[in-house]
C-alpha cells in the first residue's frame, strides 16, 4: 500500500465490502462514509448559484460597510423603491388633490366622485388627528361631541364643519375661532345652590326627562333670566353661540341631574385645535366631507334655523 498516494487519508481509504464502493477515508466510532459523488447536475446547479450570488453582490447592495452597505451597480435600494412608490402614489393622487383644492366645499356634493375621494381621504386623516378626542368611530364621549348624530353645536353643513375645523373651538389667538362661554353660575356665586337645583329641574323637563314640579316651576324663571339669552326661551340652543339644544335627547356633558348641576356650577368648556394651522386646506376639506358623511350631515339650503334664535349676519 506504500506508494505516491501515501497521505493518511489515502492510506485509510478502502473499498467497502457490502456495497463495493470506495470510502472517503475517515472513520468515526466505526462509522465510515461512502464516497458517493454528487450527481453532476447537482454540482452544476450549485456552481450556478455561486455565480448568481457573485453577480447579485455586484448588482445589488450587499456588503455591510462601516457606514451603510455597498451600493451595487444597478443603484437599487429598498429605501429608493419605497420613495419611488410613495412618489408614484402622490403623483397618482395629485389630480384629485388639485381638484379638491380648487373646489369650494359647497360644490363638493355636485361631484360624487370627488366627494367619495374626499371622504376616503378624510377617513384616513380622521384616524390620525381626531380619534384621540372623538373616538375611532367618531362617537365622542362625555364632553366630546358625537359626530355621528344630527345634533350640531355650531352647525352641520359642509361649510360650517370646515370653518369649525379651521378655527377650532375656543382657540386663543384665532379671531374666528368658535367662542362661547357658559358663566360659572355656581362657582362665581351668580346663582345660589338652590337656584341651580331649580333650574336643573327645569332644564330636565325641557327634554321630557323629568316631570314639572314646584322646583322646576321656580327654575323656569331663573332660566328665563339667566339662560334664555344663549339657549333660547324654549331651550332649543343657538348655533350662533354654540349653545347646546337643551330640549333634545342628546347631552354633551351628561343628562343626569348631577351632570346638569355640575355644568351649571362650574361649566366644562370643550376645546378643539384650530386645524387650519396644522393641516393643509385639502386635508381639512376631506375631514369636513368625512365628518359630514357620518350620518348627520346637513344640507346647505335646508339647515333648519332653531326657531327662537335671531338671524345672524355672519355666514
Amino acid at each position, binding site marked *: *500500500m506504500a*506508494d505516491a*498516494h501515501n497521505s493518511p487519508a*489515502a492510506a485509510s*481509504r*478502502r*473499498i467497502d465490502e457490502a*456495497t*463495493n*464502493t*470506495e470510502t472517503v477515508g475517515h472513520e468515526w466510532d466505526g462509522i465510515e462514509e461512502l464516497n458517493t459523488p454528487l450527481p453532476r447536475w447537482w454540482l452544476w446547479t450549485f456552481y450556478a448559484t455561486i455565480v448568481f450570488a457573485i453577480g447579485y453582490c455586484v448588482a445589488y447592495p450587499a456588503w455591510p460597510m462601516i457606514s451603510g452597505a455597498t451600493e451595487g451597480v444597478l443603484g437599487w435600494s429598498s429605501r429608493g423603491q419605497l420613495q419611488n412608490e410613495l412618489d408614484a402614489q402622490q403623483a397618482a393622487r395629485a389630480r384629485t388633490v388639485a381638484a379638491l383644492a380648487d373646489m369650494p366645499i359647497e360644490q363638493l356634493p355636485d361631484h360624487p366622485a370627488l366627494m367619495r375621494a374626499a371622504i376616503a381621504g378624510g377617513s384616513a386623516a380622521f384616524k390620525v388627528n381626531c380619534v384621540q378626542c372623538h*373616538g*375611532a*368611530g*367618531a*362617537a365622542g364621549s362625555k364632553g366630546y361631541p*358625537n359626530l*355621528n*348624530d*344630527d*345634533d350640531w353645536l355650531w352647525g352641520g353643513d359642509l361649510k360650517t364643519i370646515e370653518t369649525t375645523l379651521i378655527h377650532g373651538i375656543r382657540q386663543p389667538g384665532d379671531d374666528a375661532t368658535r367662542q362661547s362661554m357658559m358663566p360659572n353660575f355656581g362657582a362665581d356665586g351668580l346663582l345660589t345652590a338652590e337656584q341651580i337645583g331649580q333650574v336643573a329641574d327645569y332644564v330636565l323637563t325641557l327634554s321630557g326627562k323629568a316631570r314639572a314640579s314646584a322646583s322646576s316651576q321656580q327654575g323656569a324663571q331663573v332660566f328665563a333670566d339667566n339662560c334664555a339669552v344663549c339657549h333660547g326661551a324654549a331651550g332649543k340652543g343657538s348655533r350662533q353661540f354654540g349653545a347646546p*339644544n337643551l330640549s*333634545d*335627547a*342628546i347631552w354633551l356633558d351628561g*343628562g*343626569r341631574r348631577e351632570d346638569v348641576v355640575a355644568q351649571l356650577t362650574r361649566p366644562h368648556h370643550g376645546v378643539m385645535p384650530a386645524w387650519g394651522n396644522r393641516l393643509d386646506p385639502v386635508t381639512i376639506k376631506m375631514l369636513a366631507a368625512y365628518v359630514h*358623511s357620518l*350620518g*348627520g350631515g346637513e344640507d346647505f339650503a335646508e339647515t333648519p334655523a332653531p326657531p327662537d334664535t335671531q338671524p345672524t349676519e355672519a355666514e
Partner: protein
Amino acid sequence: MNKPDQIKTQDRPASLYAKREPVFNRRIDGKFRRLKWAIMVICLAIYWGTPWLRWDRGPYAPDQAVLVDLAHRRFYMFGIEIWPHEFYFVAGLLIMAGIGLFLVTSAVGRAWCGYACPQTVWTDLFQHVDRFFDGDRNARFRLYKAPWGPAKIARRLAKWTVYLAISFATGGAWIFYFADAPTLQHAFWTGTADPVAYATVAVLTATTFVLGGFMREQVCVYMCPWPRIQTAMLDEKSLIVTYKDWRGEPRGSVKKAGKNPDRFGDCIDCNQCVAVCPTGIDIREGPQIGCITCALCIDACDRVMGETGRPRGLIDYATLEDAEREKAGQPPTRHLKLIWRPRTMLYFAVWGGIGLSLLFLLGTRVHTDLTVAKDRNPPYILLSDGSVRNAYTLRLRNMQGRPRKMEISIEGLPGAKIWSDDVGMAEAGTALTRIVPADETQSLRAYLVVPAGTPAQEFTFHLQALGEAREQDSAEAQFDAPGEQ
C-alpha cells in the same frame, strides 16, 4: 498495485439507475389502433373547438360558451355561471371525475391511460412524427445508432420543429379557455396580449415538447401517480390486456411448431407484440405497471394469428378471473356482465348521486344574495329626537348577466325606517330599492332608525329581486339601542 482509485466498475453491483432504452415501436393497424385515432381526433376537436363556441349573454357578460374568467372570478359554462362562493360545483365535478376514474378503471381497466390521457395521446402523435421523418422501427433504430452528421442533424431538426409546432398548437390553445378566444388570438399574434398568456403558452409548449417528445413512457412509468392508483383499483374482474400464456406457451416458431405440433403453444415468438408497444414492454411477462392498456399488442398479435391461421385473441382484453376460467376450459363471461357488478354499481351510484345533487343545486340556486355587516363602532347613535340609529353595510349580489331591481325591506323591527347614504333621511321609508348592475356585488351603507324607546333586538333584512318570486334572500342582524341609564 492495489490503488484505491482503481476500482473496476464491473466489480460493483448493478446500479439502481437504469438508462432509458429508447422505444422504436412499429406501425400497426387494427381495430384498436383505429379506435385510438378516433378518440384522439374527438378529444382534440373538443379541446380546440370549445373556446370558439359562442353563447349570447347580452351586453353584460362575455359571449364565450365556456370561459374561466379569472380576472372577474367567474366561470361560464353555456347557460351556467358560477361565482367563486359556488366553487362547490367545481369541487363536485372534480370529485365526480375522480370517482368516474374509479368506475371506469374497475370496469374496463386502465382505459384512461390507454386512450384518453394527454400523455398517451401526445406520445402517440409524436411517434407518428418519428415514423414520418425517420421511417419505421428498424430505420429509426439505425438512425439512432448512426453517428451525428449533416443528414442526421437535418432530420432531427426537422422532426423537433414539428414536435415544437404540435406542442405549440396543442399547449397554446389552453389560454383560450381563460379569455375571449378571438380577441386573445388577435392580441397574441400582434404581440399585445398579456405577458401571462405568452408565459402560459411557453410553459405548456415546453412541457408538451419535453414530456411528449422525449420523456414519453418515462412519464407513465416513473412520474405519473395514476398507474399506482389505477393498478390498485383493478381487481380480478377488471378488463386488462392479457397474454394467455396457457395458450401461447411454450413458444415456438411456425417451423418448429409445424414439425412438432403438440409441443408448442400458439405464440410463435415473433416479437410483434413487443415491437408495437409504445412503452416498450413485453406483455407476455404478465400484467405490469408499464402497460398502459393501449391494446396495440392485441392488434399486432391478432394479425399474426390471422396470418398463421390460428384463432385470434392470444393477447386480448380479459379479466384475471376469465383467464382462470379459460385456462380451465370454460367459456369467458360476457363483457357486459362484468361491468354490472356490485363494485361498479356502487361507484356508479356514488358518481350519479353527486351528479344528481349538483344538478339539483344548479336547478334551485338563486341568483340573489344578501350579506349584512353591522357597524360596531359606535354600536348605535342616539338622535336628537330620541330615536336610535344603527348603521349597516349591506352587500347585494346580482348573479345574473343583466341589471336587476332589488328591494331591501326590514322584518321584525317595528317602526323601523331605512335610508342609505344616497337616499337621505328625508326619504327614509320601510324599504329601499336599488338597481344592482349585472354580475356584480353592490355594497351599500344603510341606516336604520327606530322610534325612541325601542329596545335592542334581532331582526331580518330581506332582499327581493322585484318581479322574481323565488329570487330572494335574507340575513339576520342585530339592532342595538341604549340600555337603561
